[in-house]
Every structure is written in structure tokens, then in C-alpha cells.
């Protein structure tokens, strides 16, 4: 146990206390923050703050109560100017004195066809403020049907449901689609990082020619256990740090966009994620160890592992196909092919309801493949040691020949 612990510590320390690791750790959040900042700055500079006109034929804004809101640099309070007719408003729109104008029809609120005329689409803040202005002045109509009022205040909410009602999708719950995909991306980056480090760690002994010293100090299983745990811990550190960043980002973001605070993941998705991702993690780690064990040089090992990385990330390249037909042949094939399974399943779960038997079968396949990969890694490692300094061929690896 002492020696395994020493190996774990060594593997963990040399990656985590390394500038390169810190850089890759921080690069993702820094990139996200920079992009968000750039989006802010751009929207700030292109924001049109000129007044907005309206032609009110219904009388709702005949003597309007002004909006009681405070603006900030990203959300300025717009000035709404009344117009007697559309011709005048159109003229001012064309001369640039106003950026848009609304026409409220006679018979509002029973007739709800409020029209908006513009040359460039006004932003969401402006449209929201005009909606608030109208809602605030609804009391002008003294005999308004309370039902109509409620409908106006709450707006519409589309809910799509599957025929058997096993699943619903509300238009304000788009994050249920986005979150599994984002988590898949973070997961896969973590797996790749750990796998890459593990690959490096296994090839290193051969490249540095330290194998004989190490193997006369510890057993092969102690060595591999230490290396695997050490490097997976590096990946998990990265995962945890990124999740903390996401969490902090959501906390901060929620102060500006309240809907962010509603983001949550249903329990069953989390359970499926764990069931899929854990064996997938073991499988990828074992595959990388196998490659590391049979190769003698880092550059070769990286080429081969690149091929596996491609197979793992293939679902990302066919996102649109999976999205438009999550139960199609391609999606099915990819979700039963062990390497592409984790991401495909997460994507399909985002867009459709997976039958339980499919998920169960996927998990079983992954667990079996993961166990097989671990066995193969052990065999490759023993063979790699015997063929010290030489490559192990596929024939050696899968052949029936005895190891010694």
C-alpha cells in the first residue's frame, strides 16, 4: 500500500504542480469568461438607445404610468414616444429619430396583434420594457376580463409531450438539452486528459529506461494501480475545478439572468450519467495503458491514441444527425459501439426518451468492455516488459502464446 501511495503521489504531483497543467486547467474558464466579456462589450457598443415610438389605437397608453425600473449600462431604460398616426412614426423611423415603433390595434387587449416596425431588430431588453409598460397600464381598462388579464400577464408557455406522455419538454427548459451535452463535453475532456497522462506515464518508463529499476522495486500491479489512480485523480481534479467554475459562473450569472438559477438536472439523468461514465472512464484509461504498454515511443503511442480519441468523439461530428433523428440507425449504432457510446447516449437522452432496456444494455456492454480492457492492459503490460525495448505486435497481444 505504501508503494502504491508513493506512485499515486508522484504521478499526481508531477502533473498538477506543473505550469502546463495549470495553464490547461485555467484556459477553459478563461476562454469562456473572455468570450462572455467579448459578447458583453460587443452588445454594449452596438446597442441602440434611441427612443421608441408607439401608435396607440386602443387607449391603453392614453395617459401611461411610466415604467418604474432602474437601468444599468447593459440594460438602459428606453424612452417611449406616443405618435398620433403611423405616417409620422414611419417618417421618424426613417430619419433615425426613433429606432422602432409599435402599433397597438383598436380592440386590444381582446385583439392582441401588436405590430412592431423597425429597420434593425430591437433588442430583447427594449421589447421586454414595452411589454412591461403595457402590463403596467392594463388597469386603464376597467372592465377587463380577469382571465384575459392573467393570460396577458403570464404569456404563453409551449409544452411538447411525447404521445405516451413519458416525457415533456417545456420551452423554458432548454437547459435540459444543453446540460447533458455540456457535461458530456467536460467529461470527455477529463477522460482524455487522464488518458493522455496515463499513456505518457506508461510509455515513460520505457522511454526513460527506468522500467527495470521500477519493476525490481514494485510489482507490476502496484505500478499500474498507482499510475491509474494517480492520473485519474489528475483528471478528476480538472473536472472538479471546472465544475466549480461552472457553479460560480451560474451563481454570478443568476444575478443578471434569473433563469440561470432554475438550472438543475433531474435525478435519473445523473444516475444514468454515472452508470455510463464510470465504466467508460475505466475503459478509456485501460485502453490508454494498453497502448502505452505495447508502444516504446511517445510519438507512436500518441498517434494510436489519437485514433481512439477520434472514435470517442465521433458523436460530436454528427450532432445534427443525432439531434434530428435520435432513434435513427446511426444514433443506435453509435450508442452500442463502446467507444462512442458515452457521448451518443448523453446526446440521445437530451433529445429523446431512451427505453430502459437500451440504457441497461449499454451499461452492461460498457462494463464488459471495460473489464476486458483492464485484462488486456494487464496482459499488454506483462508482454511489454518481456519484450523490453521492442514493440508488442497485435499477434502477441491477442495470440494464444504463453506469456513466458
Amino acid at each position, binding site marked *: 500500500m*505504501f*508503494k502504491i501511495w*508513493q*506512485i499515486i503521489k*508522484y504521478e499526481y504531483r*508531477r502533473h498538477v504542480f506543473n505550469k502546463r497543467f495549470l495553464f490547461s486547467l485555467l484556459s477553459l474558464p478563461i476562454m469562456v469568461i473572455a468570450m462572455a466579456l467579448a459578447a458583453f462589450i460587443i452588445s454594449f457598443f452596438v446597442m441602440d438607445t434611441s427612443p421608441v415610438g408607439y401608435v396607440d389605437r386602443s387607449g391603453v397608453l392614453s395617459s401611461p404610468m411610466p415604467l418604474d425600473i432602474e437601468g444599468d449600462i447593459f440594460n438602459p431604460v428606453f424612452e417611449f414616444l406616443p405618435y398620433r398616426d403611423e405616417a409620422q412614426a414611419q417618417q421618424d423611423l426613417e430619419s433615425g429619430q426613433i429606432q422602432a415603433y409599435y402599433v397597438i390595434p383598436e380592440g386590444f387587449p381582446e385583439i392582441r396583434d401588436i405590430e412592431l416596425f423597425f429597420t434593425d431588430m430591437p433588442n430583447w431588453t427594449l421589447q421586454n420594457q414595452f411589454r412591461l409598460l403595457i402590463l403596467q397600464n392594463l388597469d386603464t381598462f376597467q372592465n377587463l376580463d380577469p382571465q384575459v388579464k392573467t393570460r396577458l400577464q403570464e404569456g404563453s408557455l409551449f409544452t411538447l409531450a411525447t404521445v405516451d406522455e413519458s416525457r415533456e419538454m417545456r420551452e423554458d427548459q432548454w437547459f435540459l438539452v444543453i446540460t447533458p451535452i455540456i457535461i458530456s463535453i467536460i467529461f470527455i475532456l477529463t477522460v482524455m486528459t487522464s488518458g493522455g497522462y496515463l499513456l505518457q506515464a506508461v510509455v*515513460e518508463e520505457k522511454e*526513460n*529506461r*527506468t*522500467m*527495470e*529499476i*521500477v*519493476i*525490481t*522495486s*514494485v*510489482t507490476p500491479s502496484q505500478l499500474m494501480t498507482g499510475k491509474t489512480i494517480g492520473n485519474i485523480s489528475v483528471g478528476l481534479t480538472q473536472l472538479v475545478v471546472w465544475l466549480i467554475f461552472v457553479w460560480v459562473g451560474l451563481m454570478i450569472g443568476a444575478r443578471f439572468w434569473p433563469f440561470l438559477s432554475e438550472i438543475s438536472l433531474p435525478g435519473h439523468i445523473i444516475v444514468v450519467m454515472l452508470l455510463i461514465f464510470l465504466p467508460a472512464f475505466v475503459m478509456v484509461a485501460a485502453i490508454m495503458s494498453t497502448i502505452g504498454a505495447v508502444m516504446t515511443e511517445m510519438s507512436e503511442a500518441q498517434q494510436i491514441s489519437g485514433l481512439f480519441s477520434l472514435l470517442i468523439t465521433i458523436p460530436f461530428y454528427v450532432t445534427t444527425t443525432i439531434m434530428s433523428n435520435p432513434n435513427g440507425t446511426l444514433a443506435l449504432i453509435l450508442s452500442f459501439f463502446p467507444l462512442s457510446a458515452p457521448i451518443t447516449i448523453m446526446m440521445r437522452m437530451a433529445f429523446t426518451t431512451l427505453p430502459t432496456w437500451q440504457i441497461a444494455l449499454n451499461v452492461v456492454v460498457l462494463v464488459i468492455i471495460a473489464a476486458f480492457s483492464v485484462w488486456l492492459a494487464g496482459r499488454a503490460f506483462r508482454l511489454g*516488459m*518481456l519484450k523490453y*525495448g521492442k514493440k508488442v505486435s497485435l499477434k502477441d497481444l491477442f495470440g494464444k502464446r504463453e506469456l*513466458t
Partner: protein
Amino acid sequence: MPIINVHNISKRFGETVAVDNLSFAVHPGEIFGLLGPNGAGKTTCIRMILDIFEPDSGEISILGGPMTDDKKNRIGYLPEERGLYQDIPLERCLVFLATLKGMPEKSAASKLTEYLQYFDLYDVRDKKVKELSKGMQQKAQLISTLVHDPDLIIIDEPFTALDPVNTEMVKDILEAKRDEGKAIIMSTHQMNQVEELCDRILLIDHGHLVLYGTLQEIQDRFASRDIFVRPRTPLPAVIEGITEIRQMNGRQLLVLAEDVEPHQVLKTLINQGIEMTAFEVAIPPLNEIFIQVVKKQARDEDV
């Protein structure tokens, strides 16, 4: 009780016989030379002792039985293929390797300080291993072989890449370890070092045992019937009991006749009033024995 007892071990790789029915023992307090031409099976033999390979047949007892995890901590090994972790500071690398031998980090660090100072590497302990010279790396690797105070030390070509000063340093430390009662197996092609250091040797070729015994025994076995003298006064043209006199690098080589012993010649020379600064029985250098034996082996195989 021997530290290593090898009994009739054999190992094949495919069609090639690497080691063939080899037996020998290594005792505490001796430096044991494992010799042989390239490809003789020395490294395979060492790897079997260290349990990297299993022998196809035969038995190896190490530190009183089969290899165990705990015994690995009592062995120091300097392999033929030198290597250290290149991308980390020297001291961290050595501490890590010492902990793999079961040393707690703290005691490893303090013991390493002593060794780094002895081998003149203390000032470069924070440098990355890859920044060190070949000789420095070799010394560092020797430190990692010795730092956990092993009972059995196995070193393969310990003197390559070392300058004469460092070579002496390494020799001193090996002799000190022998005097402490440690067993040392040294594999090398530098026969002069074997003559200086080894108590007993094993010479193998094509996996077979060719010579095995104390250095003295083996040299005696190969001693020719020659005497070297360095005379101050000219030697007479004919000396009783000598069949031939040859000039060699300022010395004279006297070839003894059958049934004549060296002390009889010495007596004759003194009686004849010859003054000498040297009179020695020509012991063949190990190098010559090595070449002679290996060539004979090759001839025998051809036949």
C-alpha cells in the same frame, strides 16, 4: 549461507538458448564478477535472479528463498540500460525511487543528502535530470542503487562514463559495502576492474558456465610456466632450467623447462650473482584468460 543460490537454471527465447543449466552461489561480503562476452546470457541471468523473467527450469533462492515484495527492498540494482526520470529535479527523482524501495520520504531525503555530497552532486540536486551530464546521471543512478542500504547489490557495468577520479570513488564505496558484509554482483567487460575488485568470478558464454571460482584459483589454473625478471646486470645467454629468454618492455621473459619450479631458477640466478629489481611468476592477466577461453569455446562449438 549464500545470499543467492542458483541451481541448474535454463532459459530459452524461442529457438535461442539464453542460459543453459547454470548453477552458482554468491555469498555475503564478496564482490562476485559475472563475466562473459556480449550476448553470453549475463543480463538474462540477472533478470532471472531479480524475478523479471522466470527460468524455464531450475531454481533460484535469493536472500534465503524465493523472491518476495519485501526482498525487493533489500536489493539494489544498477541495470545495463541506464535511465532516470528526465523531466524532474534530481533530488525528487532519487527520493521517489528510494520510496519505491520502502524508505520513508524523510529518511530517504537525509540519506540522499549524504550520498549527493559524497558524489559531488549536491549542488545540482535541484536541476532537472536531463540537464546533467552522462557521468553525473550515472553517479545519480548508483546513488539510487545504494541509498536504501541493500544487502544484495547487482551492478551492470558500473564504470562506463566515469572518469578516473569517479571510478576510484565508486570502487571505494563498493569495497566499503563488501566490508560491511553486503553481497555484490558486478557484471563488466573491464577486466582490470575485475582483477582489482572481485573475490570470485563466473564466466559464461552462450549461456554455459565456462569458469567459476576465486580469482586466485582461476589465474593459477591458467598460469603459464614463465617468469618475468628485471635484471640490473646482463643475464647469461644460458640459464639452467630455462629453455628460452625473450625481451619484453625492458623486462626479460624466461620460459621454464619441464619439471623446473620458479624458486629453483631464482636460486640459480642469485648464485650466479645476477642483480635484479624484479622477479615474478607470470600470472596471465584476466583479459588474456577471457580471450583465450572465449576463443576456445568458439572453436569447440565450430567443431
